[in-house]
């Protein structure tokens, strides 16, 4: 892990009083390796290291500390601040603000993302989380995947919320229109639209997503990403964001042992909030994002 690596390369500097060019270069090399290993985008790493180099130069190494732990702390704090840490030790994790459409006094949320990222499961989780404040209606706009509607319906049952039965309708605009009508009629003030997984290279499916967004007019479009994603993740997220603007992010499968570098890359470059972290397969496994905890995890 990084703190071990830093200790190893900076051990000969333990008697120096400042962070200088030489020990900083050694530390940056260790950090670069740790971040690549953690799947942080190469592009983000380059820029980030340049910023850290400036911040670190000349930093004092006070008595009782070694350059490696001063460097580690500088780096970790810089990272956490970047991710929205308020700089205080009593950290308050980011809390998701449910947008309210003033005109309709209800909310429409849609989820998008790559195949298998965890969208359908996450809708179930969101429904469970939000049913205290709202009366959700779950709607499947996935007309592609076998048994997608059944999966969402089953999750709606598990969460104890309403599911919009579309009886084999395959025209997306029809489903959206009928779902909104149904929601209004039955006083559901929150609609959660599930969409099919799609790749960032499939122009037909990207067109479908744009059509869904334009027609459903969501108050929030949330991009769902697998926390284990690799180097291509940033470009993928940018493509989704260009197709229909993303308002916030959810990173799933954080209960894996990945360090989850994709979160840093996508959140930082798209400059979007992380609404939630998916931390398991059960509907209760939805957590708030904590910048300081994530920074610690990322640096191993």
């Amino acid at each position, binding site marked *: 892990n990084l703190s071990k690596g830093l200790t190893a390369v900076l051990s000969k500097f333990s008697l120096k009083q400042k962070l200088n060019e030489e020990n900083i270069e050694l530390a940056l090399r260790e950090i670069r*390796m740790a971040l*690549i*290993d*953690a*799947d942080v985008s*190469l592009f983000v790493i380059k820029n980030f290291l340049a910023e850290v180099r400036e911040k670190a130069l000349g930093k004092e190494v006070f008595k009782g500390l070694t350059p490696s732990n001063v460097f580690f702390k500088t780096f970790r704090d810089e990272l956490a601040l970047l991710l929205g840490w308020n700089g205080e030790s009593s950290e308050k994790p980011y809390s998701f603000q449910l947008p309210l459409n003033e005109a309709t006094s209800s909310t429409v949320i849609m989820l998008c993302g*790559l*195949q*298998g*990222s*965890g969208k359908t499961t996450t809708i*179930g989780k969101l429904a469970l989380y939000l049913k205290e404040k709202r009366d959700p209606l779950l709607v499947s706009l996935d007309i*592609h*995947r*076998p*048994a997608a509607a*059944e*999966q969402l*319906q*089953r*999750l709606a049952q*598990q969460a104890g919320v309403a599911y919009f039965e579309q009886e084999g309708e395959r025209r997306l605009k029809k489903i959206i229109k009928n779902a909104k009508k149904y929601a209004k009629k039955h006083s559901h003030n929150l609609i959660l639209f599930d969409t099919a997984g799609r*790749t*960032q*290279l*499939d122009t037909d499916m990207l067109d479908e997503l744009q059509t869904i967004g334009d027609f459903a007019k969501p108050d929030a479009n949330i991009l769902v990403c*697998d926390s*284990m*994603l*690799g*180097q*291509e*993740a940033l470009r*993928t997220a940018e493509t989704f964001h260009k197709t229909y603007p993303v308002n916030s992010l959810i990173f799933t*499968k954080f*209960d*894996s*042992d*990945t360090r989850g*570098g*994709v979160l840093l890359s996508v959140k930082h470059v798209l400059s979007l909030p992380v609404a939630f972290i998916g931390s398991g*397969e059960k509907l209760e496994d939805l957590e708030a994002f904590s910048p300081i905890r994530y920074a610690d995890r990322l640096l191993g």
Partner: protein
Amino acid sequence: VEKSARVDEAFFTELEESLLASDAGLKFSALFLAGLREELRQKKILDKKHAAIISKDLLKSWLRQGSLEFSKTKVPVIFFIGVNGVGKTSSLAKLAAYLKAKGFYSMLGAGDTFRAAASEQLSFWAKRLGLPIVKKPQGSDSAALVYDTLESTLAIKDKKSEEAVIALIDSSGRLQNKVALMEELKKMLGVAKKFEERTEVFKILVVDATLGQNSFEQAKVFHENLGIDGIILTKTDSSSCGGIVFAISHELKLPLLYISFGESLENFSPFDVDSFVEALF
């Protein structure tokens, strides 16, 4: 050789960047570049064009493609294993279609008894392919499902003794760091062992090409725990990557069996090292 066409440090730096960008990882990239430098030195290669060809050939030689060798006397049983959402259920359906074209008759086992609508998802493919399927209600014991599937498979084999019969068993997604889930999988495989007189088990790990370094950890831990017979790489249509298979194939010596490049049944074929490496660059 003219200076601009000569192999220089920039050549190696750029090669490292493209390897890292493809998720090949630091360790494999460093190993590969060291091997390449030695190869170029031995062959006295000075120009970039020639060096690029050598590097592609070297990459290809470090990947092992393979195929499952079925015994003539036992019914093959293939388990589809991997973390959540990578494409196990889809790959099972695709392999069933592929094998059907090759004259195999598959019995499908809906081994994911945990996730919502998992059985329904596999049932759709069974129906589409005209193949039998064994399934149980959500929440059932997955080991019992394995038992029933193998029992039914052997019953079919008894009726169709001339035909090539095979069992394809799905399993629920599981993260390799979840001990209880790894134990459940071992239990499923343990039940399969009861039929070892007449069956031969193969364990395929499904790896998602869009994921990063964790795929290597997945392969390592699943292999240590269960013994993996081969890899199916999915979602290569989603990105130019999948470079993690270099480390998986080279370090863990696991053969690459099939590649999935889309969501239709036909987007599936035996892994071909040449076209994979060519597509990467």
